């Protein structure tokens, strides 16, 4: 029904500082290709955050954000690359900021009214998925790992996610 928005807001902030995140931690870093799929329109932007696992913080929380990208939205799929990602486990959270205000819009019930999604198409029961469900592993020296982030829209009062 809802998704915690703090991390995505944090990601948005980060995105204003650097359009492409550079995350090189070592020589074996790889580029991670992310496909944001199912965008309904070219309105506004797509905001994408790369998270790493935090033992003592909830996913998707600000604390875990290691990179953020903002791109103009396009109908269908938007492809972005997080460059020089150190080997390890990551999860991607993205939302379609159709009104371009930098926030994941919510109605007064707290339900998102803009589309959002997580890597692997992971979905939570009534909220965000676990990091583990959304996790993608970037291996050492891997050519170009890629991951899909399907965007789901809640037609408030209608049917929604998942399927």
């Amino acid at each position, binding site marked *: *029904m*809802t998704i915690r928005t703090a991390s995505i807001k944090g990601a948005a902030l980060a995105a204003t500082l650097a359009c492409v995140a550079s995350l090189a931690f070592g020589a074996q870093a790889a580029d991670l290709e992310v496909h944001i799929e199912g965008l309904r329109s070219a309105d506004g932007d797509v905001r994408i955050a790369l998270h790493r696992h935090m033992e003592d913080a909830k996913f998707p929380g600000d604390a875990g954000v290691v990179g953020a990208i903002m791109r103009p939205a396009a109908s269908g799929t938007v492809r972005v690359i997080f460059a020089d990602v150190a080997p390890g486990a990551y999860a991607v959270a993205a939302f379609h900021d159709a009104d371009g205000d930098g926030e994941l819009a919510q*109605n*007064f*019930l*707290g*339900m*998102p009214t803009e589309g959002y999604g997580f890597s692997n198409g992971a*979905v*939570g*029961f*009534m*909220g965000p998925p676990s990091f583990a469900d959304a996790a993608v592993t970037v291996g050492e020296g891997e050519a170009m790992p890629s991951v899909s982030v399907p965007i*789901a829209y*809640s*037609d*408030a*009062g*209608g*049917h*929604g*996610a*998942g*399927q």
Partner: protein
Amino acid sequence: MTAAPSRRAVLRALGTLPVVMAAGGAGAAAADAADAAPALTADQRRLAFATAPAETLAAPLTTLAGGLPPDLTGVLWRNGPAEHERFGHRYGHWFDGDGMVQAFTFTGASVSHRARILDTPKRRRETAAGKRLLPAFSTLPPEVAPIMAPDDMNAANTSVLAHGGRLMALWEGGSALEFDSETLEAGDFVSWRPDLAGAPFSAHPKVEADGTCWNIGCVTFPRLMLLFYRIDPQGRLAAFNALPVDPLGMVHDYVVTKRHLVLVVPPFVIEPERFAAGPISFLDAHVWRPELGTRVIVVDKETLAPVRRYDLPPGFHFHHGNGWEEADGTIHLDLCQAADPMFAIHDLRAVMEGDWGFPSAHPHYRRMVLRPGGAAAIEQVATAVADFPRIDPRRTGLRHRALFALTGARDGGWPLSRVGRIDPDHGVVDGWTYPRHLIPEEHVFVPRGTAEGDGWLVGPFLDLERSAAGLSVFEARHLADGPLWQGLLPYPLPLGLHGTFVAA
């Protein structure tokens, strides 16, 4: 009583003559007599929570006995969970299953029945998937799909509202669902204002004599809020407000008085961390915290803002009856309250397995008094178990002298086996006990004339011996005389929840 039928004939047809003769006096005697009947078998008990025999049903009722009042014309609309199994998966609680709307149409000479399972977005998704997919009130399917909005799991299974030219099937966690009066087919969810799409709208709206409709909504995730709606007689939203309340759990009903909405919040509250922790049902996300006590919030009808709050001892209830206030601001209201929510947590699950032991505390008729200075009390007026209360709708928000409810307790049977009239000052003053094999559902008051209480009491029952649903009509001022008329359908129906009578 121009059309007084032969009550003796009614009773003979039901095989309950001795019972009813006893019921003419006191309730206890009637219950004792009824208990002389053989106990119900497990198969009979299961029939009360079996899936309806078909997705759509239609048939005339056959008169068992008695005669119909010719001036009783209109439609009794009803709703209730009626698909208790889908794709081999049985729901675990009375309130889980998908709703079936029903119309009992009274012509004055006959009654006919129509019913249809509401094909909600939830049900359509499950049909497309070929399996149970979405959470229900208290039951999760083995693999549960995520919920993005409350209406994703809206079962539209609790009541019917006819207002502003619309017919709506009500749930309480999400929107009202419009349906067609002829085909009974599900239409769209009602959005009272674009930004309120999907907002909870309770199953107990109150329509005042001038046509104004009031309702509440109870938001329990992700935020905790009570919503207040005022809808004009044409069905347009006239005023709305949202009030954060923390902690908060299900608030199923409330009362309106002349100047206020009164919400009684039991200490059975959502623990939001339970939702966050993983798949869990709405009911199981609640915890009983008696230390919180019962919180009462009095809301001004003009501003929809809270103006008074009270704290009372803990208890759990689903239903009120009516509320009214004195010139000095003292508010009186009815409630059917139990010591704790175990009947909802345990007993209403057990019935799905044919277990009618009902070990938990039962709801009883109680009266709450809220004084303007801050004093408040709950009084137990009647010792009888009571629930499914209804009033003469002409008294909504005004002082009432009669509350009609299912009352009575009986060991080893359905605990709400008696149709009773409660005087808020004196307790149960009239009633008729259904024989053990006839399980009554909510009985609705249908007004006649102008005086309070002048009218009929109309309600369905399930005949566990004949495996058939039926309907009773009582003279509301003479319940002890037994039904004026009873009719029977050629098929059974599971026990439903609430309804509304729309006069022709």
